[in-house]
């Protein structure tokens, strides 16, 4: 058969059986349907908005907010604008997410390692913790802490005194606050110099070990530097710090730093909840390193501590980091549950603004943009960390 004949043969296939034609047809159909759907939605929305006299656009952000916010990190009053209120909300979301991530990671790693412990009791306790917390909705845990535990604490007059001059009552946790005097920069400078020195020492020690095989106690030197230099600076600057203890008044505690029960409930619940997932991730990561690796470092004469640090953990981290990232993102997203107990995070403040102005679309767009950017930034950071931890492969 000649080339011509084959071409003729294929040309006779009906158009509807040609995969390219079909795929083009379906995609065009999809685009048309979608375009029609969007047009319909936009048309309806414009109609609905003009009926309820809501102007579109982000101009409302400059309007006066008119409501107060309990937890603020930046200067804010009810005279501030909606935009500033949203910034306060974003900052609160970030603070609770960051605090939760740190605590959840610590608890999660401890419990995860506990589940692998040789100690039967510790293993069982860790299992109970994981099975208990990951099977209960986080919102329930938040409400439990808020309404079930923290609001039952004694009133201000009967505050529970805690060590270091702090108090616990139903208005939250009162801590002594530190006020830094002049000369604070000296301590910061000491810290910066210490970190730089540690970096230098670690490099030199590594180079020397590579060249001569002699080891250098990097860890203890680093601790000494990082604690010692700022301390020295602190003493040299004449101890420029005043500690302000919370004072018990008749109706309130004055002075010190107050951590509100809303923040505490949210922070505790998110940390404990996410920690149960992180524990499972850590366990899977450590179990994912083949047993031969343990035998290999023992055969090389490394002691368990060092073997864990140099052989097992770097390999386990490769398995742990990707799912850990998604847990961090989950925690950040779950911080929006704050609205249930009135902690003013982005979501709660956005909701208030929406109720006042009726700008539903703009507020939802702001939500999506902020949460998506937090997600993207966190994943980029964790991907970078992942790339650093990945073992170079051939």
């Amino acid at each position, binding site marked *: 058969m000649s080339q011509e004949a084959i071409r003729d043969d294929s040309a006779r296939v009906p158009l509807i059986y040609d995969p390219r034609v079909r795929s083009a047809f379906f995609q065009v159909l999809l685009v048309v349907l*979608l375009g029609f759907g969007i047009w319909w*939605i936009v048309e*309806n929305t414009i109609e609905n908005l003009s*009926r309820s006299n809501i102007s579109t656009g982000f101009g409302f952000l400059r309007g006066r907010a008119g409501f107060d916010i309990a937890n603020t990190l930046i200067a804010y009053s009810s005279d501030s604008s909606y935009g500033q209120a949203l910034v306060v909300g974003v900052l609160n979301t970030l603070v609770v997410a960051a605090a939760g991530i740190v605590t959840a990671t610590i608890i999660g790693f401890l419990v995860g390692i506990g589940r692998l412990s040789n*100690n039967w*009791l510790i293993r069982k306790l860790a299992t109970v913790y994981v099975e208990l917390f990951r099977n209960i909705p986080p919102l329930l845990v938040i409400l439990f802490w808020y309404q*079930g535990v923290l609001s039952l604490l004694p009133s201000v007059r009967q505050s529970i005194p805690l060590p270091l001059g702090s108090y616990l009552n139903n208005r939250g946790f009162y801590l002594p606050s530190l006020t830094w005097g002049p000369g604070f920069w000296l301590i910061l400078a000491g810290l910066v110099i210490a970190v730089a020195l540690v970096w230098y020492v670690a490099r030199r020690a590594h180079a020397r070990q590579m060249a001569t095989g002699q080891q250098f106690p990097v860890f203890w030197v680093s601790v000494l530097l990082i604690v010692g230099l700022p301390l020295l600076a602190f003493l040299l600057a004449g101890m420029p710090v005043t500690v302000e203890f919370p004072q018990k008044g008749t109706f309130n505690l004055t002075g010190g730093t107050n951590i509100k029960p809303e923040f505490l409930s949210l922070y505790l619940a998110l940390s404990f909840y996410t920690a149960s997932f992180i524990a499972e991730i850590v366990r899977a990561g450590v179990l994912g390193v083949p047993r031969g690796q343990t035998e290999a470092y023992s055969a090389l004469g490394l002691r368990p501590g060092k073997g864990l640090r140099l052989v097992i953990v770097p390999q386990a981290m490769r398995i742990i980091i990707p799912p850990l990232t998604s847990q961090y993102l989950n925690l950040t*997203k779950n911080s929006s549950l704050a609205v249930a107990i009135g902690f003013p995070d982005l979501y709660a403040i956005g909701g208030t603004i*929406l109720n006042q102005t009726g700008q539903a679309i703009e507020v*939802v767009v702001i939500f999506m943009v902020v949460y998506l950017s937090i997600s993207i930034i966190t994943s980029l950071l964790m991907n970078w960390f992942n790339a650093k931890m990945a073992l170079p492969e051939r």
Partner: protein
Amino acid sequence: MQEHDMSWVRTEMVLAQAAPRSQVGVAAWLQKNLFASAVDTAMTLVALLAIAWALPHILNWLFFDAVWTGTDRTACLTTEQGGQLPAGWSGACWPFVGSRFGQFMFGRYPYDERWRVMLAGALFLVLLVPLLIPRVPYKRLNAILFFGVFPFVCFWLLVGGFLGLRYVETPLWGGLMVTLVLSYVGIVVSLPLGILLALGRRSHMPIVKLLSVIFIEAVRGVPLVTVLFMASFMLPLFVPPGMTFDKLLRALIGVALFASAYMAEVVRGGLQAIPKGQYEGADSLGLGYWQKMGFIVMPQALTLVIPGIVNTFIGMFKDTTLVLIISMFDLLGVVKQNISGDPTWATPQTAKTGYVFAAAIFWIFCFGMSRYSQFMERRLATSHKR
């Protein structure tokens, strides 16, 4: 060749001896599992102390000091709060749960019509249990009934308004019933939608792929609260004026869309794990796209990701609690409403009792699901296992 004298080899077997005392028995187990080293001993002691401190507190609160009978708040108040219990008393207030149990299960569903909910629940169980036990036959018929027929029967029973049943509007719904309805609909809708989205994401058609990716990533990037918020505030804006959406329906749409984005990622994981040869094998048999996916790829891919699918279900079951934020009353919402809005049972212990009760119910469901998925995983692990 030299003769070897083999007499140093034993001629009879040594009799088996009992294992050394240090290797078996209670003492050996304790030594190995609790007191292997100084650090272990210290940890064991600390853990024992913690348990000895916490467990009596927990048991006393739950059972021994708890109040079991009563008609209102005075049953659970101490003398200084106006009741009869000794000062400093702390314990669960179970009569609160007892007197509100109907609400916790059905919300404000009319009392005379509750048999409909119970009947729907019973049907649900009758169809679900045989579906879950592998040995029971007629799986195909069972699945068609459960996923295809049951939703309509359930709609008729719960909503009513035709075929002789009184109409019960959804704002009256509440409690565990709403939790289960949300989860069931979420599961039934999200699995097929998730499969379609996953196929779309791996499709060779650029526009289909782009749209799937945008949908999945946008939904996964925002909290469910935001999706629910959109569903409850923006959906009414999107439809022509005068057309209204039921609030429960809006929440259902939000939950189902949210879950399907996560489901899509789980299914995509399974699709990626199927070797290319399987796709090529299907192609060489002359199967079309849907035949290839339906008969060859999906059965293998879904089996692989059963744990992930069940995890998504569990996550969704827990996430249904968030509807309380858009002021709907699922189990947690009803419990919260009774705690903060009802003076009949306003005592310091009410909140704890109510939440412990709700937590127990959620825990039983989630733990059951995760155990079942482990069981299925072991059962279905026929290949791909090293």
